[in-house]
């Protein structure tokens, strides 16, 4: 399983939870798994061209990632944050 952290902007989808577990061999699959449990979540983070949205930040095991085909292994960690933006 993959440990996933989602930011406050997404906890309306997860029933308030920010620490989640999800399955998948790629970031895309992990997001699909989350979306199946929390419908609508993925599209708020990734656009229809499979790009991480401009004001979202994703880290895989501490490394910034923008490619949702990035591979993951059991025990990896995905951190999703809202970028510093807006006002």
């Amino acid at each position, binding site marked *: 399983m993959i440990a996933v952290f989602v*930011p406050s*902007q*997404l906890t309306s989808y997860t029933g308030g939870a920010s620490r989640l577990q999800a399955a998948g061999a790629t970031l895309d699959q992990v997001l699909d798994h989350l979306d199946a449990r929390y*419908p*609508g979540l993925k*599209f*708020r*983070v*990734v*656009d*229809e*061209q499979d*790009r991480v*949205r401009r*004001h*979202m930040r994703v880290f895989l095991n501490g490394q910034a990632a923008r490619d949702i085909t990035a591979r993951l292994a059991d025990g990896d960690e995905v951190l999703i944050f*809202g*970028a510093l*933006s*807006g006002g």
Partner: protein
Amino acid sequence: MPNAVRLFIGSRKGAWTLVSDAGRQAWRLEGPQFLGHIVNHIVPDPRDGRTVLMAAKTGHLGPTIFRSRDGGASWTEAKRPPAFPKAREGEPARAVDHSFWLEPGHATEPGVWWAGTSPPGLFVSTDDGDSWESVAGFNDHAMYWKWAPEDGGTPDGALLNQVVIDPRDPAHMYLATSTAGVFESTDRGGDWRPLNQNVEANFLPDPYPEYGQDAHCIALAPSNPDRLWQQNHCGVYRLDRPGERWERIGAAMPAEIGDIGFTIVPHPRDAQTAWVLPMDGTDVWPRTSPGGRPAVYRTRDGGGGWERQDGGLPSDQAWLTVKRQAFCADQADPLGLYFGATNGEVWASADEGGTWRELCRRLPEIYSVTAQPL
């Protein structure tokens, strides 16, 4: 006759409603809903009186549509919000930044809704806004990248900012864009052609091009759907179909006021009457109330002349900006008019613009105001 009205207010920081009594004298502000969300448009369905759709996003999260089946009391998210198809080889990859305009379908097509987006895109739903499909007739038109160039300008992103449906024929539609002006379809969106003759685009080398205009707001006269009104980036226009050539009726506005603005509202029962809300379009284009003195201007002869209506509005130092979707009418008699400003004020007139009163202030930047008879 009871004339109670609910106003749906979309703002940069959430949604509010204002609900009136039967006389439109007492108003109650309710909300916020979706605090912090960027709410571009909230539209009640006149066909069933209970469905309401909301176009929203946040500063971080992508765009979506929220749906209510109980007049806005509770909301659920669309299963499949508007989204472009995967990009074809060699073409830019488009992604919806935000849905800007929501339009209920024709009266004979319950459940059908249309949406306009930024970047310019047309989408349709046949299930009350739960799932949306890209309309290939516009989004994949051979001319799309001419009509919606990637560097299309418009400060908050290029827009397909309006969809209008002929009440006599669901296949006859118009749309407005910020990058190419007005378009017409006679086959329910299967194909589109520009409809911009004699409409100025003074920011292009050819000031009267076939397309390229910025159509801020268009409206059919409900009592004569052959009449189209337009508040364009460059002025106020009228087109009587089957004619093709717009007439610049804003030329009759007082010179010191001009005919620049974002909105135009037709009278639902009198095709000769419409209102505009002028903005200062001089030198660097402040786009605030000319002279700091807000007013609406009404024509009652199809644009031949205009009269100033500012009773109750501030007479000095009021630099309001009212955007495309933030001026509307109810259906009551006498007609009620409403506008919301970017400074968070909402103003109302219960006598067809004669006198105005402030309903609330200090809301976030207002993007849209829509009225629902109760």
